[in-house]
């Protein structure tokens, strides 16, 4: 199996097949990257496409100095920042807090999203890059222009905070039972406040 960097260099030389292979490998992860960070699924799809368009445009200038994966997510982060600025300018809320979740356990997913929304922005970004995009500490540090130790500290803080947020409900393993019974009760509200604190 050809590695990403070799594929990118082949694409730079004009191979369409190499690009299609890269596209197949990364369109899903990139869509997930944007989907988890934006409310509008259509915009997530558009931005994933725009990332590849940016790759096509920048291909002549590509240099294999870092991993293609990091390169793609770097473009993704820039597009995401632009999108957030646009949303803020237009007065549209950008946080995916209220939209129904998908997957095998939608309620647990919604609970995770709510817990994630409570985290500090930079810590949440690091946690998501690690957990969902599966980037290494060094790759995250390179992307966010932070020292590796800072990335490690913030990741630890994010995980600890998330653990505190998730666990009072009896963890996600039995989220259904607890949320089904507790949601909307004063006790649940009190726990939410504690988590926020």
């Amino acid at each position, binding site marked *: 199996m050809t590695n990403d960097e070799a594929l990118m260099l082949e694409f730079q030389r*004009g191979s*369409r097949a190499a690009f299609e292979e890269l596209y197949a490998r990364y369109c899903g992860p990139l869509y997930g990257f944007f*989907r988890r960070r934006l409310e509008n699924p259509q915009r997530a799809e558009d931005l994933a*496409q725009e990332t590849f368009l940016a790759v096509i445009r920048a*291909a002549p200038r590509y240099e294999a100095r870092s991993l293609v994966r990091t390169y793609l997510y770097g473009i993704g982060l820039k597009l995401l920042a632009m999108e957030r600025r646009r949303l803020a300018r237009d007065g549209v809320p950008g946080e995916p807090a209220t939209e129904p979740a998908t997957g095998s356990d939608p309620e647990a997913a919604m609970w*995770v999203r709510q817990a994630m929304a409570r985290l500090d922005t930079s810590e949440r970004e690091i946690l998501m890059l690690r957990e969902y995009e599966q980037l290494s*500490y060094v790759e995250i540090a390179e992307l966010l222009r932070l020292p590796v130790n800072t990335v490690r500290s913030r990741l630890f803080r994010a995980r600890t905070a*998330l653990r505190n947020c*998730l666990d*009072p409900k009896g963890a996600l393993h039995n989220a259904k039972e607890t949320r089904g019974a507790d949601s909307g009760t004063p006790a649940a509200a009190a726990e939410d406040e504690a988590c926020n604190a």
Partner: protein
Amino acid sequence: MARQQRRQKMRLAMRKDNHPVEQEEVMAYLDGELPIEEAARAAAHLEACRECQTLAAELKDVSQSLTAWEIEPYDPQVKVDVAAALDERKSTKAISLGNSGNWFAAFLERRWVPFAAIAGAALLVSALVLVPYMSHHAAPQMAISEAQSGADQDRFAVSRHAITAVPSPKGGVVGGVVGRVPDGVPLGMQAQMYQSQAAPPSSFAGTNQGKASAVQRAPMIARTAELTLTTNNFEKARSGIDEVLRRHQGYVGDLNVASPAVGQRRLTATLRVPADQLGSTLAELKTLGRVELESQRGEEITAQFVDLEARLANARTTEKRLTELERQQTGKLSEVLEVETEISRVRGEIESMEAERKLLTTRVDFATITTTLTEEFKAQAQLVPNSLGTRFRNATIDGYQSVVNDVVELLLFLVSYGPSILLWGALIFFPTRFFWRRWKRKTTS
């Protein structure tokens, strides 16, 4: 709530206990982000430590929980616009290969060209406007200093003296005028640390390392203050500064004294005192004369320090790994040499960062006070006026110098502003002439 408090207590207890592996290292071990040696150490510790096992289980649980947030599947087919962009790229490439004469059009199609053009234009305008402006502002200063030095030599014969701090036999410091410096020697004195009582106590240097870790937690503030005083007894105030420094275990970073034959004496000094004694030192200094200006400033350098520490730790880890690699290296000579070169580079970086850290710590430990002490001006009566001939001669020389200065100023102005005036004149002239003729034609018809 209670559970969270228990957990908080446990975490605190873990910090207090002497765990060989930190909590973050446990997490990094689970993420597969530790080097082999440290991973082995962490694994061994995890086997034995119940608390760390609990932490590891909780961290795994969090990661497991996050998998619940799934995203709907995405169609891996290349979308229309991406395919179109690919086709376009292919055709553009073919055109550029087949028709090299179209390079200018291809150049213009690039996105960055308009931005670069705007930036270039802005740079050109800034250069045209700012350079003459800055040179105009710099020129008078130079002229003033030149005139002053000339006048000093000619008219006032300023005696320039070097001031030094000499430890006295009693252990104190005697500061003052020790001799005339020949022309050409700058007045600026090198930083002279008081050797005896005025020198910072040895404990400062010794405890800097130990302090550094404590300072990391508290905010690190580099404090500076500025004080301008006017006194009617210059000598007393001068020795008062030495006394204050001696009492507060400070030292002189830089000291200049100007003593013109006619006019006020002026002392400019940069004093360094332990940061915790800045307030009391300032209070004592203020008693030496009338306060004209006082200002204080605190610059927080915690983030800078923490970042430096992190970079230093990284560099040390790299050095350690490289040293290990060098020890185990059995490959070619060129590879060994490459590793050695890399080690020396990393060591250089470490030394540079350590020096920077020391500098930051010193900035925090010692506050800087910039003091200006001016003597009150006392005009001296000239009992015997100059003769008429001398006064005529002086007036003639003054007049001549004034004319020469005016001519030089005019030439400098033309050289400085001439190109700008020509450029803007040319830019404004043609549109003005165009509109003027148009208006004139209209009025005549």
